[in-house]
């Protein structure tokens, strides 16, 4: 009858965790958690305010133009139509909130992830240390994140973004590490042989050559954060996730689908643009740079000629 250990004894791990978190972690480290929240809150607030302040027509013109510049005509057209459609559905505001959350999360992922990736590329020891952590971060289902986040940071949009950052961070670290390690050994040797400092080596050779891989990591991070931003609605984050979430709660299928459509369109737009950013960077940028310098040169020469004539 009694053939399980749990019939006699269950380990009260849940109680222990609760004690550790409630009695020790929260009271003792409250300032730390506050401090972590502060910059995210600032960036998020600023971005959200900016995106909502930006007049709709400006947005609809500028973003497709960027898409055109970076990714070409097709993506630009798609972006334009998507933006019009999102507004047509009446979910513009929610979309902007979600976009602000994503951009905030990605910004912090890059700020934290790229340096960690560089560190991991430089030191095998650090890479060995960080790898299992990243593995765990990527295998834990996103819902499980939310529990400690709520306990430590409370509910709301900022904890939602924090959960997103943690969830979306691994790819950018991994691919930065990978990208730098993949730079041909002979190129690194060439850099060193000509007397580069480690800093010069990093910025002149390693990062530029790893950029494609880093951008691929950024793209993945972006996609992950997009999916997490929706789930984060569970702990009180707003935006399109909330639309889906409330739609589900009220069995309002139409409303939930609207949120879903908005998320999908946003995802495709961001994916296309960032992918193109990673791939077409080398081909595109000199063109822009050249046209700018040419324009400036023309300006200088023109004014010179004008002055001389006077």
């Amino acid at each position, binding site marked *: 009858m009694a053939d399980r250990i749990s019939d006699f004894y269950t380990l009260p791990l849940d109680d222990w965790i609760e004690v550790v978190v409630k009695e020790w972690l929260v009271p003792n480290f409250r300032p730390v958690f506050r401090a972590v929240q502060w910059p995210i809150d600032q960036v998020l607030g600023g971005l959200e305010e900016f995106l909502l302040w930006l007049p709709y027509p400006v947005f609809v013109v500028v973003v497709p133009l960027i898409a055109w510049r970076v990714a070409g005509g097709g993506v630009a057209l798609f972006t334009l139509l998507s933006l019009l459609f999102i507004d047509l559905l009446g979910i513009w505001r929610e979309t902007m909130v979600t976009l602000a959350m994503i951009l905030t999360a990605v910004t912090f992922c890059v700020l934290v992830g790229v340096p960690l990736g560089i560190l991991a590329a430089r030191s095998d020891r650090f890479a060995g240390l960080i790898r299992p952590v990243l593995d765990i971060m990527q295998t834990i289902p996103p819902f499980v994140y939310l529990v400690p986040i709520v306990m430590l940071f409370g509910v709301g949009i900022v904890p939602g973004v924090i959960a997103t950052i943690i969830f979306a961070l691994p790819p950018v670290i991994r691919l930065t590490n990978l990208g730098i390690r993949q730079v*041909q050994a*002979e*190129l690194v*040797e*060439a*850099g*060193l*042989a*000509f*007397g*580069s*400092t480690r800093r*010069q080596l990093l910025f*002149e*050779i390693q990062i*530029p*050559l790893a950029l494609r891989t880093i951008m691929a990591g950024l793209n993945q991070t972006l996609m992950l954060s997009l999916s997490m931003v929706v789930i984060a609605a569970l702990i009180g984050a707003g935006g399109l996730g909330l639309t889906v979430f409330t739609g589900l709660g009220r069995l309002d299928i139409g409303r939930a689908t609207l949120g879903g459509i908005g998320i999908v369109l946003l995802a495709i737009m961001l994916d296309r643009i960032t992918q193109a950013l990673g791939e077409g960077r*080398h081909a595109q940028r000199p063109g822009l740079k050249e046209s700018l310098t040419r324009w400036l040169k023309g300006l200088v020469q023109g004014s010179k000629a004008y002055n001389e004539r006077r």
Partner: protein
Amino acid sequence: MADHTATSGTNRKVCVEHLFKVFGADPADTIRRIREGAPKDRIYAETASVAAVADVSFSVAPGEIFVVMGLSGSGKSTLIRCLNRLIEPTEGRILIDGEDIVGLSADALRRLRLNKLSMVFQHFALFPHKSVGENVEYGLKVRGMAARERREKALRALEQVGLAAHADVPPANLSGGMQQRVGLARGLAVDPEIMLMDEPFSALDPLIRRDMQDELLKLQQQLRMTIIFITHDLHEALRLGDRIAIMKDGRFVQLGTPEEIVAHPADDYVAAFTRDVDRSRVFRAQSLCRDAHALSADEDAGVAAERCEALGREALFVVDAERRPLGIVRHRDLERDATATPGDALITDFPSTRGDAELVTLYGACATGLPIALLDDAGRLEGVVEPLEVFHWLGGTGAEGGGAASSGGEGEATPASAAPSETRRRDHG
């Protein structure tokens, strides 16, 4: 302790003493085993350690091209990377201008790399994200040179290799040979005192490789850098090297001038390489030089004939007071007409060459059957080369036999080994 005279000698640019590089768990133990003379295979079997460089010593004079030749796995690439410490040597000293660089701090090492050393790589190692010009500028940029100044310098370096017009294209747009010219220009742009070249031409087509070798020799004539050149191609080594070290299993099997290595291979390993070498392009006329025992113009025919007989020569040169050859007299012409002066039997259309000429250029002269006059820069007679001896040397058996005989017979017959000779370089250009 690295004083300038003790071990390195004052005129040595680079001096390597008992250098070891061991890859493995216990380098000290491996070095001990090597010193005891254990073979590479056994050391690996017993300790899983490999000595890529095992007790290598050599020194390079300023302006010399020192070639290290070895097959893959011989440790030559490790050796050259030890010289600028891209690979940290395990033991030994590397003196550059008398200063031991093995103990240098990171900062001092960086300054050394910035100011004295430069490197050219096997697979070019051009930065694909920078233009050709920016690649060449790189060594100057990390020095902190201003943009305009370094651009000018880079363009000058590109001009030296004939690529100034390509400064603004990405290196991927260039062919392999052109890419390595860029690599060379990048190395030259920093005005290095020492150029390390790691199999720079190995990845190129044979014809382009030859062009690049010529180009390097031409540049070297103007710049007179100290070059340490790695190759797996003995022909390349023979063409470029003032001295050559043959490397095998981390050790130098033989170190010598091209002539020495081809004439006297140290062991079967070296001999296997030198077997199919075109000896007529390695040996030079001066290796076969014999005393001319020239006649002066006023000596009479009898004396001349006697001297021919005494020396066993078919013919002798007649020189003026400045030792400039006037012509040649044949023994049999003198015999036929005993009353004539040497002047009467004089053949003025005699073959001549210079000491640094390759034997391949002497075939036409040999066909006359007359001894070939070796002239110096001022046109004075330095010695003579017997036509038959040329073929003796080319035959290979003559290398030891002929060489030994000539040096035994006449004290002044020196294989051109004395020094990395200035004259040898000249004919390449």
